[in-house]
């Protein structure tokens, strides 16, 4: 008898949350954010039919990361230039690690924070920390969500347009809104 295949496929990327690191997995009908601490795994599921929006916010952390890698490289390169022989080779070796880190940071591209919104919560998807990866994941998710929410799409087409009263009292459309 063959074992039941595991329904979860890992979405590339790993991210740090407050006290644990997180990975994202995709099943047939939901996403699962897995938090991993020392010996505990926590699971948060986001069913495709419940996902209302995905928001990606571009952040500037990658510039800071780049600056730190560069600073460390210059520090060890300066030490390597100041010393002779074997010590110089050792410090150049250490400096090269930081320049590789800088190159990887540049190749991975700008950082971002990705959020998934459902009717009851908005949660950051920590593993999607790079803009390129988050956008490619969104591309991957879009048809899946469209298929899972097909019945809402049909019902939505029959809805009257939503007009929301602003604080000044004049009707306006502040964004994608859904009434009570």
């Amino acid at each position, binding site marked *: 008898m063959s074992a039941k295949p*595991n329904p*979860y496929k*890992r979405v590339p990327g790993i991210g740090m949350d407050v006290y644990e690191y997180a*990975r994202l*997995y995709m099943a047939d*009908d939901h996403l*699962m954010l*897995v938090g*991993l601490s*020392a*010996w*505990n*795994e*926590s*699971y*948060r*599921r986001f069913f495709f*039919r*419940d*996902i*209302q*929006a*995905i*928001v*990606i*916010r*571009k952040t500037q952390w990658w510039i800071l990361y780049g600056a730190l890698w560069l600073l460390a490289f210059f520090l060890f390169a300066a030490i390597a230039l100041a010393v002779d022989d074997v010590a110089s080779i050792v410090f150049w070796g250490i400096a090269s690690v930081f320049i590789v880190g800088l190159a990887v940071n540049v190749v991975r591209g700008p950082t971002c*924070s990705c*959020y998934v*919104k*459902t*009717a009851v919560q*908005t949660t*950051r998807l920590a593993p999607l920390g790079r803009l390129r990866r988050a*956008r490619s994941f*969104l591309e991957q998710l*879009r048809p899946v*969500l*469209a298929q899972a*929410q*097909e019945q*809402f*799409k049909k*019902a*939505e087409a029959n*809805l009257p347009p*939503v007009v*929301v*009263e602003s604080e000044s009292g004049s009707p306006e*459309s*502040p*964004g*994608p*809104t*859904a*009434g*009570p």
Partner: protein
Amino acid sequence: MNVNVVTCPSCRNALPQAICNTGELAFCPSCETSVQVEVFPAFFQSTLTAAKAETIVESGTSSCFYHENKKAVIHCDTCGRFLCALCDLDIGGVHICPACAEAGRKKGNVAELETNRVMYDSAALVLAFGAFLIWPIAVITAPTAIVLAVLSWRRPGSLVPRTRLRSYIAILVAILQLIGLAGFFIILSNEG
């Protein structure tokens, strides 16, 4: 009035419709943060009619086990009780009643309801490597790590794909620690 809006993660202000579903980064008008917003049909679901349980209007119609005046629409796949639309919980395509869901959650036999699991192989690994910090405690931690690693093969593992590498490493490190400790005590007794 309960209005559902997509807010900027940075300033928490509502984002305008013009920047949604464009496929590109756009600036939040309030804080000028670059954001990309994708809104899906479920966003408008709150305007639609939520699941409502039909009231029984004619005799001879089966009723919900939990609401005797509500029409049964399905039965619980676990206990077989008739359920109305309100009591029907669709968990991964399986329809169960609230009581079975609660029982499943407590017993841990419905994987879809689990929110956390103890990873015995990770605990074994932590114990095995933790002993390097205060090495005499390896007398206790190394055998415990071996027991936990073996236990991890029998207990339910992670819900996501995971290899047994952690438990193998934990066993290896723990055995090496025990050998090292045995050697240390032999040398100590010979000197004494």
